[in-house]
């Protein structure tokens, strides 16, 4: 019970949002007393909408959307944020922009009737009614339905659906005025699109007018820009688009009578929506690349307001990114950001159109953006202030291709959020070396003279009083290294990375799918180093690297700095797939192979020209290397040295590999052996020896293997002094399958335990597929398998619907004292299939996203089950409750001796065993565990959207003095006893004396 308290200081949690999908927005709200607050709003690839405090980069709030409810649009207005999610905008929500609290949730249409568009934000739009204080929202969903939603009650006021839904008009924009709501869409014609506008009455949702605007647009609705201007005669709106390199525009009136006009002058390449359409501003780039600000002026015409100097395409700098923002008085600002190849710095020009008597004022600055660390600037948001005339202070929020979000105040870097950590693909905890001891005198003792030695020893002795004082102090106060004390180094600590007394401090090497790898200090979650993956030859065409596996190829115990190998798949933009390996020093992130220069981009090594099937770590004595199999099952080694090749050649005949092969939906499981000699291609090749005899419509979803951990005891001694020997056949794998009708949902799920060397099925269970989805999670360690699934009660009419956790144990032979030495048996022995299985099913309190077991150094400590629940908690379930041998009656004395408790179908949901306690650890995808130096303790790192690290001691910290050990009590007791001796000694002496005197 005290475990949680004891580890309270030992954990950390990093709340993340995910990599922003679009440009973040500065959103400013005015409080009751005129004070303004601003937040940076963003929608991310993790399906989260979040707000970040611009002052310090911390998360103000976040709202997590379900996976099948993807965010397709959001818009903030005053104190509220409207979101649309699900296919075609099925669900509408209103959140409070300052707290993230949900105000209203409204289901607009079923997910099945939602129309899927590409891109997803096509066909949905949100507009707020700014004509009065009603806070009503106009919502366009499915490309043809407009609804007015009451701001106070969240109910639908009216709805309008395009009468001809079958027509090819898809609306994508909503503009509100007090007279009419304009729906702007595109109708498909032969080679291009035609603009279609509908005007709808804001009061009752009736169609006022409907018109096709003569136009021909090629590149979809991104090129449509609606500019509005709040004039003396109310709000005037104009629709602009690019057609044949000219800007065409048409005024929007309720009658839709206006004819399009063409703006004369320069030819344009592109128009950019910079978020200032309501201020009548947008940016258009000319054919030579120079950017022009175009303004919708008072007289209803579009005019060029500004041309950014030196924005012509040039090899000296990159193309510019444009962004718009408002200051607290509502004045617009336009920022242009680009990277200069010459100065190796980023530049920003901020235009304030209202300054300098309305002629516009540009403020420029350069800032030291680290492109080696963060990649390329992807999106920019700007926020500005105008403290005095001719002075503009601006804040820029940058998002980069590696998933970083940065805030720059002018040229000062304020904060960086590494949001790609919300998308970690593989991670590993790597042990740190011991602290370097000063050993300067070693070796000189033989040569130094007597005098010199005396002098040195005297000098050393000077420190003795200090040492003695320290010793006494330590003895009295008892400040030893304790299992719960913080292991985080002081912030000003510059000493090299080293482990703590108990090995709690490790370095977490985590590779993300945004092309970046991080070294994270497990003590406090700080990023120690980070490297950007190089793309190799694909740098010219572009591409992405998806890390698949990570292996620790050298540990501290091998005598040098630890090294890791990350195996990834590179998908180049020209659709070529390669397998790349990166060899990194885990302490510094340096490239071990030496192909990268300094702290430049990390260069990998192309191992396979093609996709990877599987990769394993092989250990032969002290050398470790990675074995990779390509699609043709050819064996590749990394690092490919002659020693490794020799070593592999020796072990090749004894290798058995169960592999999952095939295409999506029809994966098969087959056992493979490696050819003892190299084929003519110069490589070993794996050839199939068996295939699992599963029905043809059964798809192998995943293979769960046992972690390579020491097994402390080979058997379990029972209460009656007999022994059950654990079934520890090293080739056993757990296979999770799903059975489905062709192209239909899954009808049932399967769990198999298969002997991977010859394909014998040792155990099989058929599970219901709730909702047509197989979502079985399994953890396998030693001889113990635990799996979790949802039972929808379909198999049995009166059976309860609930989540189930099934616990299984495999023992050798037919019962007690039947030993077959399964861990050393030949794969071809008949005894490998002679096993007995104990099985028990429990009702589990909730759904989970991942399951794992704790792991310790020697495997003596009891293993707990760790799960990440759907309520954003990481919780441990003790083995004692999951023991499959729990009796169905009151335990006998012998069973009590084994600590068995009576079977209860319900697993207790103990909040004291929630490792993440008050932290909301969002959507943990995987939990990895790693042993500490202390046998009792296991380190736990969970990653998903958030990162979470803690330590657990399933059997309590038996190998370290209890944290609650009362030193004061001990000292007091000893002192009390000493006092008692002092007092009683003379008494006893006197008594003895008297006895002598009066003895007979």
């Amino acid at each position: 019970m005290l475990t949680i308290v004891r580890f309270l200081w030992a954990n950390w949690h990093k709340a993340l949002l995910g990599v922003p999908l679009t440009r973040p927005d500065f959103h400013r709200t005015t409080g009751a007393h005129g004070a303004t607050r601003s937040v940076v709003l963003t929608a991310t690839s993790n399906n989260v909408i979040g707000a970040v405090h611009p002052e310090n980069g911390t998360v103000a709030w976040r709202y997590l959307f379900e996976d099948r409810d993807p965010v397709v649009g959001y818009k903030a207005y005053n104190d509220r944020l409207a979101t649309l999610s699900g296919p075609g905008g099925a669900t509408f929500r209103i959140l409070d922009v300052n707290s993230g609290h949900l105000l209203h949730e409204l289901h607009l249409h079923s997910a099945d009737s939602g129309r899927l568009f590409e891109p997803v934000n096509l066909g949905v739009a949100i507009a707020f009614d700014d004509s009065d204080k009603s806070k009503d929202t106009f919502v366009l969903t499915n490309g043809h339905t407009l609804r007015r939603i009451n701001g106070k009650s969240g109910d639908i006021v009216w709805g309008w659906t395009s009468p001809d839904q079958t027509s090819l008009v898809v609306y994508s924009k909503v503009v509100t005025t007090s007279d009419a709501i304009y729906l702007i869409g595109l109708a498909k014609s032969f080679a291009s699109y035609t603009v279609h506008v509908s005007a709808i009455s804001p009061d009752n949702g009736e169609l006022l007018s409907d018109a096709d605007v003569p136009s021909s647009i090629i590149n979809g609705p991104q090129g449509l820009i609606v500019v509005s201007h709040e004039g003396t005669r109310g709000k005037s709106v104009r629709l602009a688009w690019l057609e044949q390199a000219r800007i065409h525009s048409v005024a929007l009136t309720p009658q839709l009578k206006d004819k399009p006009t063409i703006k004369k002058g320069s030819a344009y390449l592109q128009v950019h929506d910079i978020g200032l359409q309501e201020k009548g501003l947008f940016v258009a780039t000319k054919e030579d690349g120079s950017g022009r600000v175009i303004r919708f002026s008072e007289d209803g015409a579009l005019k060029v307001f500004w041309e950014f100097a030196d924005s012509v395409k040039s090899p000296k700098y990159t193309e510019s990114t444009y962004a718009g923002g408002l200051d607290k008085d509502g004045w617009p600002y336009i920022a242009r950001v680009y990277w200069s190849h010459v100065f190796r710095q980023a530049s920003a020009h901020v235009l304030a159109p209202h300054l300098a008597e309305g002629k516009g004022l540009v403020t420029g600055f350069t800032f030291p953006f680290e492109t080696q660390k963060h990649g390329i600037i992807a999106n920019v948001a700007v926020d500005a202030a105008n403290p005095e005339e001719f002075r503009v202070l601006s804040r820029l929020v940058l998002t980069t291709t590696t998933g970083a979000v940065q805030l720059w105040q002018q040229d000062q870097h304020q904060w960086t959020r590494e949001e790609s950590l919300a998308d970690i693909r593989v991670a590993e905890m790597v042990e740190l070396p011991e602290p370097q001891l000063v050993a300067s005198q070693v070796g000189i003792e033989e040569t130094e003279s007597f005098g010199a030695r005396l002098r040195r020893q005297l000098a050393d002795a000077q420190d003795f009083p200090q040492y003695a004082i320290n010793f006494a102090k330590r003895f009295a106060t008892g400040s030893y290294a304790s299992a719960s004390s913080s292991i985080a180094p002081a912030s000003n600590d510059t000493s090299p990375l080293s482990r703590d007394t108990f090995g709690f401090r490790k370095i977490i090497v985590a590779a993300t799918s945004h092309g970046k790898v991080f070294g994270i200090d497990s003590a406090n979650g700080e990023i120690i180093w980070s490297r950007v993956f190089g793309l190799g030859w694909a740098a010219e065409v572009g591409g992405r690297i998806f890390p698949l596996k990570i292996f620790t190829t050298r540990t501290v115990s091998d005598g040098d700095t630890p090294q890791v190998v990350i195996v990834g798949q590179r998908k180049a933009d020209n659709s070529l797939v390669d397998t790349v390996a990166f060899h990194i020093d885990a302490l510094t992130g340096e490239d071990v192979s030496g192909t990268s220069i300094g702290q430049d981009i990390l260069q990998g090594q192309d191992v396979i020209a093609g996709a990877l099937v599987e990769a394993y770590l092989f250990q032969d004595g002290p050398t470790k290397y990675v074995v990779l199999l390509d699609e043709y099952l050819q064996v590749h080694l990394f690092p490919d040295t002659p020693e490794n090749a020799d070593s592999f050649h020796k072990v090749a005949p004894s290798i058995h590999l169960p592999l999952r092969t095939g295409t999506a939906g029809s994966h098969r499981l087959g056992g493979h052996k490696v050819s003892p000699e190299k084929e003519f291609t110069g490589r070993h090749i794996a050839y199939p020896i068996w295939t699992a005899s599963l029905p043809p419509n059964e798809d192998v979803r995943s293979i769960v293997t046992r972690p390579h951990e020491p097994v402390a005891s080979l058997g379990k001694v029972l209460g009656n002094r007999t022994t059950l020997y654990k079934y520890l056949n090293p080739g056993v794998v757990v296979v999770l399958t799903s059975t489905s009708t062709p192209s239909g949902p899954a009808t049932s799920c399967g769990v198999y335990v298969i002997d991977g060397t010859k394909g014998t099925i040792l155990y099989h269970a058929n599970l219901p597929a709730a909702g047509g989805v197989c979502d079985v999670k399994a953890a396998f360690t030693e001889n113990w398998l635990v799996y979790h699934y949802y039972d929808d009660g379909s198999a049995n009419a009166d059976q309860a619907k609930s989540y189930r956790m099934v616990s299984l144990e495999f023992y050798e032979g037919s019962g007690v004292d039947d030993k077959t030495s399964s861990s050393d048996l030949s794969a071809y022995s008949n005894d490998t299939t002679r096993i007995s299985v104990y099985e028990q099913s429990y009702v589990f309190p909730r759904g989970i996203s991942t399951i794992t077991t704790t792991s310790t150094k020697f495997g003596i400590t009891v293993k707990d089950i760790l799960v990440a629940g759907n309520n954003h908690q990481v919780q441990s379930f003790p083995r004692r409750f999951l023991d499959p041998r729990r009796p169905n009656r009151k335990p006998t004395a012998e069973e009590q001796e084994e600590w068995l408790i009576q079977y209860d179908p319900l697993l207790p949901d103990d909040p004291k065993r929630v490792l993440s306690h008050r932290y909301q650890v969002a959507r943990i995808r995987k939990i990895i565990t790693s042993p500490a130096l202390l046998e009792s303790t296991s380190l736990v790192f969970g990653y998903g959207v958030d990162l979470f690290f803690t330590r657990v001691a399933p059997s309590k910290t038996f190998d370290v003095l209890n944290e609650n050990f009362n030193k004061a009590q001990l000292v007091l007791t000893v002192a009390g006893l000493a006092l008692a001796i002092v007092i009683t000694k003379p008494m006893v002496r006197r008594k003895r004396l008297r006895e002598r005197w009066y003895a007979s």
Partner: protein
Amino acid sequence: MECVVGLNVIGSKEKVRNCIDACGTPLLTSSVTSTVDITMMIPLLILTLVSLLCSSLAFDLKGRVVWNEICPGIGDLGQAKVVLDNGNLYGSVTRNGQFVIPEVPSGTYILSVVAHDHAFERLRIDVLDTDTLPEVRPYVPGTPLSPPSPVTLPYPITLIPRARYDYYTPQESFNLVGMFQNPMMLLMLGTGVLMLAMPYIMKNMDPEVLQEFKERQAKITDIQSSIQNGDLKTGLSAMMGGEEKTSPAPAPKPQASAARNRGKNKRR
């Protein structure tokens, strides 16, 4: 799913509204509501009409979380959702505690609340084809679904936060009184006091009783030492046989009296 209206007037109105909400066709509103007012007269007609109009709809399950001292508001609850079964159907809890689970097909469901810090009871919900309102019943996890509990709860569903998860165990700190309240400590103190007081007690004891006491003590130490040596048998037999030995042997008695006499003599 079909949206069938029963004969219950109030219920059918609600259901019709539900259908209209979901259809989102404002034109229908007036006509249908007016016809509902005369439902008793021509129910069949409307039944067919409504089921034709929105035949692909299901029930919207509504309810609310009642804020109480355990959970005073949304700020405390955080982002929470009310789910049916394994979460394929769900509704989020809004700031005023309300939730709607849209489009629930008929069937039996277990309703639970997914919240980070708060525990809620589970409910069994039966959305029926025939009746208009779903049946709400309490449900104990791990129990079979049939037969259903005889207790029914009102609809719309009311959920009450039952408990706030307590993740922490208070850290024990050193205090002197607590230390002396420890039974081990009390035992130790007791023995200490007894040890000090023993000579005086012995002195004032009746010599005969004292003799008996000494014997018994010797026996106990004997048993103790035999247990410590792992020789349970002797210990046990000593325990068993102890009584037997003492009762048939009256021999020590005169000794005891002699001792008493001697003791008396000595004192005098």
